């Protein structure tokens, strides 16, 4: 790299080295600057060249310059290593360097199969075999690195299905498929043995757990068990006051709901569960009132923005999205660390900031609404912020689809009768809609007779249609219901592809609206086009931005010159950068590849959201099961229009529930509360 470039690079990467100090470096070392910057022992000399008058600062800057140069060198070596082996992509190489460190290229050479978490198996295996051949390995197909890599790839595939474990009987088939062998071949057994030996799977009584997930599951169980054990039980006098109604008025509660309130208060870790219309929110509000009457505080959160807003309105308390809550808790931790060394003036400003952020102490009751959708990873992150003596209540409906991402926590916790308060009596029997009644029927694997669709009328109705006719019917119904502009309509469908899949329906609605109104448009990466007003959905958990896989919103602006889409999601405005995939967006921006149209969404993606009216195409698909139908129907607040084949409904209702099909290692057995606390409840 020419000297000027090296200087410019250092000046651009190291805060504190501007053009002037960079020039001094150039003067002092000339063409040997790159080799000087590669040598940590030259830090004093670099410091002397940078600034003789400020020796201490200069040393710091010199060390940072060497570090930046090493990072750059590591990045360059990695890009070169990947490129020579046919793997292109600057953004990918950079991410790899961030994960593996400066010596990424060395690590890749040592074991190319470490790329399994980041690339598809076919690509990793092709690359891996090539590297092993370069190395002169006599039989690369049987190399230990490839065998263990194949087990890692089995884990990856399982996690993408939502599982955190695999059965011993399913394993050989999957391994054989990846290795291009037959189940009976010796190589399959060798791979499984190597995988177990090297911790690619964790054997737990015949269930083989994926190690990363197992770590998170163990930590979540351990943390909840500690909370359950350590949190102070409510004094009997307080419980008596509550029972007498002298602390809060229980008059508006059904006996089942009042019993649930006491059970929740008696258990530091508890679950409140029930189907649509049983008054979970009403009961939650009573729990909050009762807990606050005992001197405690409450902190409410839900996965989606809409759910958080609904909870805020219903409870009269601020409810945050889980993304925002996690962001605030991270920030609180950072500021508290900073406070340790802050000057008095700065400390005052930090305390002001801290006062505005969420915090959890020993007297906080954390309420997680729609907990059935909260994935293992999100809960793992949340619990890292929860003190051992705080309390946590999970509110949800286990009949709904399991979380989009991997793991199953709520569905397992509610199996513990000691901590689960069940609500069965339907109160919100909004007869005009009848949605809770239909939902209850689906829970019982029944599909009640439904009236024919008759326009924008509250309730659940049906339009019979063969698969090919579904898009036209959906378009007509959407127009009848007032279209998508008000944000009160969504199409919930089963698949991404196929005539009634997410892709074709989104393209149909987007094109029709964009052409009718001659709106500006930007092409996304996945063949989609975005215009102002298009409903949109985020496709990935992005903790930095505070967006989840499934966060929904609306495009508010497209900048065709800057290739930027501006969207409002959960009440906040985000910018998504389009164009060159290698161009990494700045930290505060998202990537357009993570954004999709959301006229139509899969049921899995929208399970945290609700809309006034929902159109549900039904056709034969492997994903249709009772939990899918139940979740789709309960996304609507006022009206559901089911469009499609009756036979597909019948088949779906016969299938096992999605949560039963998910194989996880989360085990809460034996973690129930002490008998005394249960007895109080």
């Amino acid at each position: 790299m020419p000297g000027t470039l090296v200087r410019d690079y250092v000046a651009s990467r190291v805060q504190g080295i501007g053009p002037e100090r960079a020039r001094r470096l150039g003067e002092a070392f000339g063409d040997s600057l790159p080799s000087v910057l590669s040598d940590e022992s030259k830090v004093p000399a670099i410091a002397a060249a940078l600034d003789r008058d400020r020796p201490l600062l200069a040393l710091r800057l010199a060390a940072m310059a060497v570090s930046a140069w090493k990072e750059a060198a590591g990045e360059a070596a990695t890009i070169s290593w990947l490129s020579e082996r046919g793997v292109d992509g600057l953004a990918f190489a950079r991410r790899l360097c961030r994960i593996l460190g400066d010596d990424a290229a060395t690590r890749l050479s040592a074991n190319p199969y470490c790329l399994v978490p980041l690339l598809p198996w076919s690509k990793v295996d092709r690359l891996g075999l090539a590297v092993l051949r370069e190395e002169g390995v006599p039989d690369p197909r049987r190399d230990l690195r490839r065998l263990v890599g194949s087990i890692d790839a089995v884990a990856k595939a399982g996690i993408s299905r939502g599982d955190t474990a695999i059965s011993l009987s399913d394993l050989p088939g999957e391994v054989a498929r990846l290795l291009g062998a037959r189940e009976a071949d010796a190589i399959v057994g060798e791979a499984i043995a190597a995988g177990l030996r090297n911790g690619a799977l964790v054997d737990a009584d015949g269930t083989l757990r994926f190690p990363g997930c197992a770590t998170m599951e163990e930590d979540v169980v351990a943390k909840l068990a500690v909370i359950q054990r350590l949190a102070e039980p409510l004094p009997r006098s307080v419980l008596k006051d509550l029972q007498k109604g002298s602390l809060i008025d229980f008059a508006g509660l059904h006996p089942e709901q009042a019993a649930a309130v006491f059970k929740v208060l008696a258990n530091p870790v508890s679950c409140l569960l029930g189907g649509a219309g049983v008054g979970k929110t009403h009961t939650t509000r009573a729990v909050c009132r009762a807990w606050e009457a005992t001197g405690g505080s409450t902190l409410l959160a839900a996965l989606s923005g809409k759910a958080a807003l609904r909870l805020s309105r219903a409870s009269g308390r601020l409810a945050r999205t889980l993304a925002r809550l996690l962001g605030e808790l991270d920030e609180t931790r950072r500021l508290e660390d900073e406070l340790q060394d802050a000057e008095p003036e700065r400390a005052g400003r930090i305390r002001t900031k801290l006062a505005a952020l969420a915090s959890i102490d020993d007297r906080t009751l954390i309420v997680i609404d729609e907990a059935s959708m909260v994935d293992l990873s999100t809960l793992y992150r949340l619990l890292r912020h929860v003190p051992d003596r705080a309390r946590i209540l999970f509110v949800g409906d286990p009949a709904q689809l399991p979380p989009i991402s991997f793991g199953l926590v709520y569905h397992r916790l509610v199996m513990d009768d000691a901590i689960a308060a069940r609500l069965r009596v339907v109160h919100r029997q909004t007869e005009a809609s009848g949605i809770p009644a239909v939902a209850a029927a689906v829970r019982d694997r029944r599909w009640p007779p439904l009236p024919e669709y008759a326009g924008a009328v509250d309730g659940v109705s049906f339009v019979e249609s063969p698969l090919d006719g579904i898009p036209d019917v959906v378009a007509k119904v959407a127009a009848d219901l007032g279209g998508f502009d008000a944000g009160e309509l969504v199409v919930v469908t089963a698949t991404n592809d196929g005539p009634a899949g997410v892709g074709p329906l989104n393209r149909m609605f987007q094109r029709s609206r964009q052409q009718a109104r001659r709106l500006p448009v930007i092409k996304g990466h996945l063949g989609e086009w975005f215009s102002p007003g298009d409903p949109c959905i985020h496709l990935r958990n992005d903790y930095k931005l505070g967006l989840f896989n499934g966060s929904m919103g609306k495009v508010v602006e497209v900048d065709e010159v800057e290739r930027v889409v501006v969207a409002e999601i959960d009440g906040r405005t985000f910018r998504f950068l389009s164009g060159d995939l290698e161009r990494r967006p700045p930290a505060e921006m998202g990537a357009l590849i993570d954004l999709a149209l959301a006229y139509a969404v899969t049921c899995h993606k929208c399970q945290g959201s609700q809309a006034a009216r929902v159109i549900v195409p039904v056709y034969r698909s492997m994903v249709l099961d009772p939990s899918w139908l139940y979740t789709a129907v309960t996304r609507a607040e006022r009206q559901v229009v089911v469009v499609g084949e009756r036979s597909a409904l019948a088949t779906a209702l016969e299938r096992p529930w999605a949560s039963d099909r998910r194989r996880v290692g989360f085990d809460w057995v034996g973690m129930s509360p002490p008998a005394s606390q249960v007895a109080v409840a």
Partner: protein
Amino acid sequence: MPRSILETLVPLVGERLEALDAAWEAQPEEGRRPTLPMTDDGKVNVRAFAVEVCGLTQAQEQHFYKKPELAALVNSVAVRQGVKPIGARALTDVIDKAAKDRLGRAQSDRDDLARALAEREALIERQRRTIASLTEQIRLLGETGMVLRTGDLA
């Protein structure tokens, strides 16, 4: 018990100075020339006096700078003969040298400290990069449920 250097030198130097002084006295009063060895700029040539007059080694010259008793003896004659005495500047040179030596040692200490500090800064930067890498691995765990395989295989 060995005699001190002064006990050895003072009689010798005194004797030689007396001889030089006598030779100076013996000259006609007008036009007397100094009998003490002199440098070109009119100062006592300490080295010549020590080596040639007193028969000492060159290394012993230093005593005329370091021992005021010896310097005083020589200077008493030098003043009489109009020769610039073994003066402040010469003595200061010795002090300067000592100071220089000490400064040199301090500079060396400073260099050692700077090196240690530089190593510390470099270590901090290396640790920062390690922390960044581990943070990314934790992020990867959260996003994908996968642990990155970095260790050796068995």
